[in-house]
């Protein structure tokens, strides 16, 4: 199960010659840390990291907000068509993302008064080539709404009624009661969404292929693969992969307490 990672780390430290040896040698004679240095000099990996981090955390933050608001509303507030709306939001998960790729790309391009566009959205590039293009299409997550709603349902109504009697506005209830009480679910959701955004490939590929300044890590890694073939020292490629993969895995390892606990707590019944 773990072999691929082990192989990756070991192989990334091999020298050019060792990699070509047959049969394959697994443990390098002398760890070639040099691979990493050269890699950093040649490729703006730090830029990719920064971009990925910026996009992922922005999306995560906004999704937490929209999901908890919607989740609370769908769980505790009463209004007509509430259940229908909830089921509708769930149903949105069923559409293949492909249906959205072209239209959203077009929308971003023709955004009025952005990126050089006039009021009709013509002339410039709109939101394309900006971070907004990577962030905006993801600020609402049906999965997040589902998770939050399930969790908020578990909050006793008496608590909310008591607050209402005391004269709290709904928004106050949301801010001072719901948010603190749903911390575990928020943590779980946050980690989920962050990882999902970090690993996202297709959309960033479409947007950032012609916009290297905002390129994210997965797309950058793919570029590496194109540049370094086995003939030209794949040690660099593998070092790049280690840099791209290991931090996330370590991050998960340190946060797994929250992740796993939250998952089990929300319960996945029905």
């Amino acid at each position, binding site marked *: 199960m773990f072999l691929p990672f082990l192989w990756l780390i070991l192989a990334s430290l091999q020298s050019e010659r060792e990699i070509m040896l047959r049969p394959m040698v697994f443990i390098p004679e002398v760890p070639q840390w040099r691979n990493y240095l050269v890699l950093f000099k040649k490729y703006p990996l730090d830029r990719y990291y920064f971009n990925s981090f910026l996009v992922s955390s922005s999306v995560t933050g906004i999704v937490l907000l929209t999901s908890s608001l919607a989740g609370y509303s769908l769980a505790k507030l009463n209004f007509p068509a509430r259940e229908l709306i909830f089921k509708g939001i769930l149903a949105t998960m069923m559409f293949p993302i492909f249906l959205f790729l072209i239209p959203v790309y077009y929308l971003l391009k023709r955004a009025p008064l952005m990126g050089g566009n006039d009021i009709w959205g013509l002339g410039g590039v709109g939101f394309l080539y900006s971070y907004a293009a990577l962030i905006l299409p993801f600020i609402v997550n049906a999965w997040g709404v589902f998770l939050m709603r399930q969790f908020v349902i578990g909050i006793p109504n008496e608590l909310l009624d008591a607050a209402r009697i005391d004269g709290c506005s709904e928004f106050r209830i949301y801010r001072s009661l719901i948010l603190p009480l749903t911390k575990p679910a928020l943590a779980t959701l946050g980690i989920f969404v962050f990882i999902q955004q970090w690993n996202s490939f297709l959309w960033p590929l479409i947007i950032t292929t012609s916009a290297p300044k905002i390129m994210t890590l997965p797309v950058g890694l793919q570029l590496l693969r194109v540049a370094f073939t086995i003939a030209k020292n794949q040690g660099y490629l593998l070092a790049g992969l280690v840099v791209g993969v290991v931090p996330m895995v370590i991050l*998960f390892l340190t946060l797994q307490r929250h992740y796993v606990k939250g998952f089990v707590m929300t319960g996945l019944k029905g």
Partner: protein
Amino acid sequence: MVKKKVLRRKRRKNKQALIGYLFLSPVFLFYSIFLVFPIGFSLYLSFHRWNMLTPPLEARYVGIKHFTYLLMGNETFLIVLKNTLFYALGTVFIGMILALIVALAFSRTKYSSVWRFVYFAPVVTPPVAIGIIWPYLYRPTDGLINTVLRWFHLPGQQWLSSPAQALPSIIIVGIWAGLGFTMLIFIAGLKGIPEMYYDAARIDGANSWQGFWHITLPLLKPTILFVLVTGMITAWQVFDLVFMMASGGVDTGVVPFESVGVAALHMYQTAFRDMRMGRASAMAFILFLVVLAFTLIELRVLRRGGVESY
């Protein structure tokens, strides 16, 4: 007096309704821009011929020509659908069974962080990276997998270099990548089954196999349904993995598109390489209908079940 009370209650209810909608307004706004419009636009595109260069309103109307072409004219799309079906069934069902086995095993033994890490590492790794690493492992001459096979005196395989084995090889990777996640869901589901059911069964003389078949499985139905439905939806749209592992690359060998082409990959090429937006949109809608059909079948088959309904 009573009228005043009724009025006040109604006003409070209306106020709550207003707040309810208000809190949902970001979601509504988002979906109208990023969901309703795109689907409508895609639908429009699927009946026209468009290559992104001309304004879309001037695109040429072609009726259902795209659909007839995809389903009857050229067999590429059908082959692609078949491949994707194969991939979806393979990863979802085999993955589910394996995840269930592992989850059951973990419910008996101590669930240490090490194991959690081992099983979850692939889930948090970008599929891009996975798609670069595994072709190396799969190298027929000196990849890690064939090397290990030969240690056990088993013949090395062609893996990604063979048209017949390429897709199964990718399926294996797909299962490997998703196992931890599915396993976690099953563990959560298993935890929801009260221990007393098993105790009662044991008192009545049932063995573990019967316990599993008559208690665990039925009560796990909602979880299984969830795993199946979400698994199917994501599997049918697989892209990253196949793109990295099959698009030429270093040592993957030259395999014809027909043996590994999956739906998303084909759509990507049609839209962004061949610039045929209309046809790609038509493909996406057909795919949507297929996924919908599967989902409805799954919902039907696994309707009853779960801890609550017993």
